[in-house]
């Protein structure tokens, strides 16, 4: 069996002395589209931050692309970062730059492509993320919430990452855009063979696009499997989350479309 892209063993994270995760284990295979669910404040964003090396871990081990991430030198860390990208929950676009410049920034950092080509690639990614071309020259302050998400996605896709983290990509989008976003992510996965980790509360996303769902609670992965499995889970918290009325409606919809 191929080595997993992400492997976290016995992971412990702390923020300001408070323990957020305690003994969390997670494996994500290459090409998998995995959703992370859990109630608000359960530590999904913190987990993503730990996996993307933004937050130093307090214990345990993280392996990415089958290599440990501790003790990397600067060049090693840069090489690793080039292979993965994160779309932040609130976009985190560089406010001093236009959308186009935002998307060109990773290209300027990690490639030696000429300016014209970088601009061309950035335009392609912006279109791919579903933004109209004329949005490319606006500043982040001039974008709507949905456009910000798309611009952030375009930037995350700039370097064709092998591993993509998305933190609540569809939160706050209208249902049509959210559905389009979901199918875009799925297409990208199928087309480019990306491994995708997506944090989401979106019922439809959970039922329809995820290969599997990891449910975070009490500082660890409480349950793992597809939505139907989790709805039958032994953990009351998991069952409650997946068998609420909103979830049931999501399930019915997914049966209708199936």
């Amino acid at each position, binding site marked *: 069996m191929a080595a997993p892209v992400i492997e976290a063993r016995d992971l412990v994270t702390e923020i300001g002395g408070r323990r957020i995760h305690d003994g969390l284990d997670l494996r994500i295979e290459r090409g998998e589209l995995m959703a992370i669910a859990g109630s608000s404040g359960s530590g999904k964003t913190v987990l993503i*931050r730990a996996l*993307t*090396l*933004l937050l130093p871990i307090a214990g345990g081990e993280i392996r990415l692309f089958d290599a440990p991430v501790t003790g990397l030198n600067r060049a090693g*860390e*840069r090489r690793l*970062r*080039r292979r*993965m*990208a*994160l779309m*932040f929950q*609130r976009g*985190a*676009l*560089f*406010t001093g730059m236009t959308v186009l410049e935002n998307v060109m*920034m*990773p290209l300027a*950092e*990690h490639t030696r492509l000429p300016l014209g080509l970088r601009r061309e690639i950035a335009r392609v990614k912006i279109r791919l993320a579903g933004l109209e071309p004329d949005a490319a020259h606006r500043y982040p302050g001039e974008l709507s919430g949905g456009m910000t998400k798309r611009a952030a996605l375009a930037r995350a896709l700039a370097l064709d990452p092998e591993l993509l983290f998305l933190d609540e990509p569809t939160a706050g989008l209208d249902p049509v855009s959210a559905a389009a976003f979901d199918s875009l992510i799925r297409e990208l996965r199928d087309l480019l063979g990306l491994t995708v980790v997506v944090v989401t509360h979106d019922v439809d996303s959970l039922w329809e696009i995820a290969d599997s769902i990891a449910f975070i609670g009490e500082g660890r992965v409480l349950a793992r499997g597809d939505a139907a499995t989790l709805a039958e889970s032994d953990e009351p918290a998991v069952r409650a989350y997946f068998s609420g009325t909103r979830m049931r409606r999501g399930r019915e919809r997914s049966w209708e479309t199936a």
Partner: protein
Amino acid sequence: MERGGRVTGFLAFTGELTVDVLPRLIRPHRLRWRAIVAGIEQAGLYALPIVGLLAFLMGVVMTYQGGSVLRSYGANVFLVDLIGITMLREMGPLLAAIIVAGRTGSAYAAEIGTMQITEEVDALRTLGITPYEMLVLPRVAALAVAMPLLSVWADAMGVLGGMIVANGLYDVSFATFLDRLPYAVPVRMFWAGIGKTPVFALLIAMVGCYHGLRVRGSAEEVGRATTMAVVQSIFLVIIADAVFSVVFQQFGI
């Protein structure tokens, strides 16, 4: 306890900055020159009017006050010594540093602090760019260049202010003033004043960036970081100035 934490925090910041930045200085072509040049423009060029005006007024006031005393001894011409020495050695650099701390040090803290809140700093890190490389180093470098130049400008404007009052009220003509200036103020005094300014620049820029990077969470924190940056950098600049005075005295400069 709280204060101890802040001191060690700043020392840790200094250490990390040094470790991050020193290897980059070996390859200067990889530095972010565009950001540095923009920073010099912002911190230096745009500060010229306010620094010039305040230094000019300072020269005017000092001459006005000092002149009335000196005149009663018939020693008007010693105004040149008074203005030359105080301006070039102390007031010019100090005035420039205090304005820069209020104008640029606060801006550094606010800019970087806001970027912390919008997670732009984290977004940089996901691209493999450290905040030291992208945000701190260009700012420190820009100020290290702008600060000495601003001090020279403050020196000149302060002396000009003094000259105009000396000429108008105390019968010291421009020609007399300029003739006497090189004898009254040896060149090493000018250099003693300017020599301090890169240190002031370093203190102001580093304290500003440090407080910006420490911001976590809310917009309220940005305000607090800005205040702390200004208060602490002015405090440190004056301490450093005092240390320089003692050291220069020891070496007879």
